[in-house]
């Protein structure tokens, strides 16, 4: 027993199977029995007795055998796991050591990655929060928005149309109608204006929104005769009613009407967005009258019935539209309908700009990854001899590749973690910079969905960084490397790969720069657009006159006159106008009209215009020029003949013979027997009302004295921009009616600026991303050129020794850098020409292929490339020939 067993390991190899373990156990047991029996036989026992005795002595052999096999399997499995884990840990430890020793590389790579992934995640958070995240409602995919389609433009529904669709549709479980209606509420002596939504009683039922407390609308509560009830949004309830459930059942005074609060709805269920509270529609008999089919102001949503699809809904709606067209060809002759998912109806128009941003930021990330890949490729080639030694010591090529991939993954994970920090920090700034009307922007945050995206990014970045060096190592012939030694290794392949990467990143930078350049040109073009009015030194505010205290048109007109008078008396105020609606705001009020004495136009060819009711001063305050005829004035009063001023566009479009003046226009809208309209007395300049990038629409201006209304917007011109009249305005209104809230008070210039806020947002971000891209590309060029100089030291030394001038060496190196830049520039320009087409809809005043932009971008990038190559070129020119040759 003291004899040394020969060295031969038993079941230790991790790849052992259960069969091998069992064989081992059997062999061990049989050896035991053999020895025992031999000994017993030596002691004088017969062989049979010895065998029996041995068995008896042992115990239950079969049970023991199984127990031993199980025990060994447990051991082997553990060993196997440990071995795998061990290699993995070794890889990570080794990678970590590499990253720590190469501190400069690691810091540069981490910063680059953190920036790249950080901005990408921040933008993704916005895209996800605004566009992609499903609405909070139950089964949001079944919720749809319905539109009336007139001349291929989306429009709302008229009350009679809405009633008919609701009655006839079988593919929708229900249709709910609603419209915005601001309401005044006096809160602790302070009048405030609330965003009320008047909805049919089934709105919450269709959205499947439960009440947070209390209840939502019951069937029948939207009837004109039903008691007035209100559902509050959670936000309003918490901010104004201290979140006290005692509010339930209490009456509040809204627009002077006692309204009972019946429930509160949680914030995440606010629909439409921005609603403070919900009231019921209470359509009057007159509003439901079929002669009102032309008045389209009800927005409609629905829920697709189980088993139905959007397509079947669309088919059914088109059928209903056709039937209504036959029923009432005057109003509905050329009117269709369209069904769109609710989510798309909210965020659809934002898809293009936001996905453009996401694409742009993906480019930045790609450039960042290319830079890091480049760095690590340079590092890998510097480590060739080390890798060759490891290969010679038994590390297989697969293991070496795995090592490099581990390193790049570690780097990518660390970079992405740092990127999360960047994303968190920059998201606040991003949200603050975003246009205020971006829906759902307030709910944007870095959450689980963004974390999942971060994991994806880390994997992609790890792959992007690791794959190029790994390919490189995979192609290395280890034996040859070792034989040749580190110095004589031909590195042309590496340098070519690095050059290709740099060319790629320059191309990406050119595309990004072009996109940014086009947006800058767009914004510039928008700013140069003459809106048709002068917004400078004009201050605006709006008031809503509740029907309870301003029941008659006379009272409304009197309010306007009194207020204007008081405001005019304020110091610094030169003129005060008043109107219903303002250019570049959301108030739109369009009507069709006919000309007295001319035949009715055929369906689809009817004349329509935006209506603007305004005082004579309105034109002066906004400096809308009179082109022909006269403006109406204070002699055009309620009792005198109705007069109209039209815009040039209206005169041009509908009276091409130049005979608009003196015509009598009639609309179908009005009160009692009097219809909105009158004799055209003047023509004024066009105003961009919808948006600066939309052409001016035809406009009808009517005197306020003849058409008073309940939501006047005052336009106040001051002598200079510094005049602050906000408090004066408040005091003036308070003196006239202390219960009236003043809202939307701001300089008109802010309204104009806000109308291009989306473009400005895009310009800012794209410029930022382009700047990042250019800096990163410059670093990339610098790295490759500097490395090339390092590699060609001997060659350059020889040239210098043979009498080449330093200028020539400088030129040689510069040429290397510029060659890459030019190649990248060409590819980039081609790519830009292909890609900018996709964003054509975002552009204004510039074509997607804009030679100027392309030229400027290319020249700028070449300059940057030249600059980046200059430092290594100068270094090469200053080389000392002999020392270069000695190295």
């Amino acid at each position, binding site marked *: *027993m*003291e*004899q*040394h*067993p*020969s*060295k*031969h*390991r*038993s*079941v230790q190899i991790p790849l052992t199977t259960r069969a091998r373990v069992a064989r*081992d156990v059997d*062999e*061990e*047991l049989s*050896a*035991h029995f*053999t*020895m*025992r029996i*031999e000994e017993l036989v030596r002691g004088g026992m017969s062989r049979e007795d010895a065998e029996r005795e041995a068995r008896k*002595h*042992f*115990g*239950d*052999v079969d*049970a*023991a055998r199984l*127990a*031993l096999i199980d*025990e*060994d399997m*447990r*051991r082997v499995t*553990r060993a196997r796991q440990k071995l795998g884990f061990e290699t993995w840990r070794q890889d990570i430890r080794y990678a970590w050591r590499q990253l720590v020793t190469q501190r400069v590389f690691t810091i540069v790579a981490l910063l680059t990655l953190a920036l790249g992934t950080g901005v990408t995640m921040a933008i993704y958070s916005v895209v996800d929060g605004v566009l992609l995240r499903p609405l909070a409602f139950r089964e949001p995919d079944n919720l749809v928005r319905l539109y009336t389609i007139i001349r291929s433009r989306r429009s709302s529904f008229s009350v009679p149309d809405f009633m008919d669709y609701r009655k006839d549709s079988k593919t929708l479980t229900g249709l709910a109608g609603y419209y915005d209606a601001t309401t005044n509420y006096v809160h602790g002596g302070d009048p405030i204006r609330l965003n009320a939504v008047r909805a049919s009683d089934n709105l919450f039922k269709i959205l499947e929104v439960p009440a947070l407390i209390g209840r939502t609308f019951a069937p029948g509560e939207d009837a004109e005769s039903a008691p007035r009830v209100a559902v509050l949004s959670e936000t309003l309830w918490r901010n104004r009613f201290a979140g006290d459930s005692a509010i339930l059942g209490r009456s509040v005074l809204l627009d002077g009407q006692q309204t009972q609060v019946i429930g509160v709805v949680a914030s995440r269920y606010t629909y439409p967005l921005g609603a403070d509270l919900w009231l019921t529609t209470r359509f009057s008999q007159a509003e439901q009258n079929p002669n009102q089919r032309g008045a389209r102001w009800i927005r409609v949503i629905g829920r697709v019935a189980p088993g139905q699809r959007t397509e079947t809904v669309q088919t059914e709606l088109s059928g209903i539209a056709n039937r209504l067209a036959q029923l009432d060809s005057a109003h509905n002759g050329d009117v269709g309908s369209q069904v769109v998912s609710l989510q798309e109806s909210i965020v659809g128009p934002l898809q293009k700009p936001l996905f453009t941003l996401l694409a742009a930021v993906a480019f930045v990330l790609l450039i960042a990854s290319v830079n890091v890949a480049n760095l690590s490729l340079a590092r890998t080639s510097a480590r060739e001899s080390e890798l060759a030694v490891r290969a010679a010591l038994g590390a297989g090529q697969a293991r070496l590749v795995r090592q490099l991939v581990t390193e790049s993954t570690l780097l990518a994970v660390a970079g992405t973690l740092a990127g999360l920090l960047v994303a968190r920090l920059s998201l606040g700034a991003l949200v603050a910079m975003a246009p205020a009307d971006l829906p759902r922007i307030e709910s944007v945050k870095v959450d689980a969905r963004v974390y999942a995206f971060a994991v994806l990014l880390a994997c992609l970045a790890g792959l992007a960084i690791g794959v190029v060096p790994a390919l490189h190592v995979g192609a290395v012939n280890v034996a040859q490397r070792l034989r040749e030694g580190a110095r004589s290794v031909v590195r042309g392949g590496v340098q070519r790969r690095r050059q290709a990467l740099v060319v790629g990143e320059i191309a990406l930078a050119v595309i990004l720069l072009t996109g940014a350049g086009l947006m800058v040109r767009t914004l510039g073009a928008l700013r140069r657009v003459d809106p048709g009015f002068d917004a400078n030194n004009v201050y605006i505010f709006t008031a809503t006159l509740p029907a309870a205290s301003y029941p008659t048109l006379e009272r409304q007109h009197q309010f306007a006159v009194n207020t204007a008078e008081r405001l005019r008396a304020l110091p610094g105020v030169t003129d005060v106008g008043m109107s219903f609606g303002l250019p570049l705001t959301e108030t739109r009020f369009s009507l069709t009209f006919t000309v007295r004495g001319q035949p009715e136009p055929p369906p689809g060819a009817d004349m329509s215009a935006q209506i603007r009711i305004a005082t004579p001063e309105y034109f002066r305050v906004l400096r809308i020029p009179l082109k022909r005829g006269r403006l109406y004035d204070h002699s055009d009063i309620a009792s005198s003949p109705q007069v109209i001023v039209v815009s040039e566009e209206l005169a041009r479009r509908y009276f091409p013979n130049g005979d608009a003046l003196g015509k009598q226009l009639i609309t179908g809208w009005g009160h009692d027997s009097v219809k909105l309209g009158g004799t055209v007395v003047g023509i004024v300049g066009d105003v961009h009302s919808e948006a600066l990038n939309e052409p001016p629409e035809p406009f009808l201006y009517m005197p306020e004295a003849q058409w008073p209304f309940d939501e006047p917007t005052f336009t106040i011109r001051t002598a200079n921009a510094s005049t602050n009249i906000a408090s004066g305005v408040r005091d003036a209104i308070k003196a006239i009616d202390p219960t009236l809230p003043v809202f939307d008070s701001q300089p008109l210039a802010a309204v104009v600026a806000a109308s291009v806020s989306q473009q400005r947002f895009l310009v800012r971000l794209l410029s930022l991303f382009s700047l990042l891209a250019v800096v990163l590309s410059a670093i990339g060029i610098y790295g490759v050129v500097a490395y090339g100089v390092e590699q060609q030291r001997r060659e350059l030394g020889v040239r210098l020794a043979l009498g080449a001038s330093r200028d020539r060496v400088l030129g040689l190196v510069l040429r290397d850098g510029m060659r890459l830049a030019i190649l990248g520039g060409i590819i980039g320009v081609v790519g830009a020409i292909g890609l900018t087409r996709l964003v054509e809809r975002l552009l204004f005043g510039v074509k997607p292929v804009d030679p100027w932009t392309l030229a400027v971008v290319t020249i700028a990038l070449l300059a940057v490339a030249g600059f980046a190559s200059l430092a290594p070129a100068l270094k090469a020119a200053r080389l000392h020939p002999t020392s270069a040759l000695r190295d």
Partner: protein
Amino acid sequence: MAESLDLLKGTLDLLVLRTLAWGPAHGYAVSRWIAERTRDVLTVEEAALYQALHRLERRGLIESEWGVSENNRRAKYYSLTNEGRRELRAESQAWRQYAAAVFRVLDFAG
């Protein structure tokens, strides 16, 4: 021959470790050695002994190698690992304290 006693739980492991402290041995040798040392007072069922050997190997206290026995037979040799040696020291100490405590109680009357 004195009447044999059942092994106390855990004691078998200790005995095996102690046996292997002499040097590498195969299972049969371990069994023989324990029987001789205890003068057959402690009966060790061999099935349990082998299970103890494999259990100790899994715990990393002993390791095994195939070798050739004195009779030129292939046999599996077990030897103590460093960890096994530490365990043996600690367990012997604990066992001695335990036994001493029991003796103190038993000897008190006399």
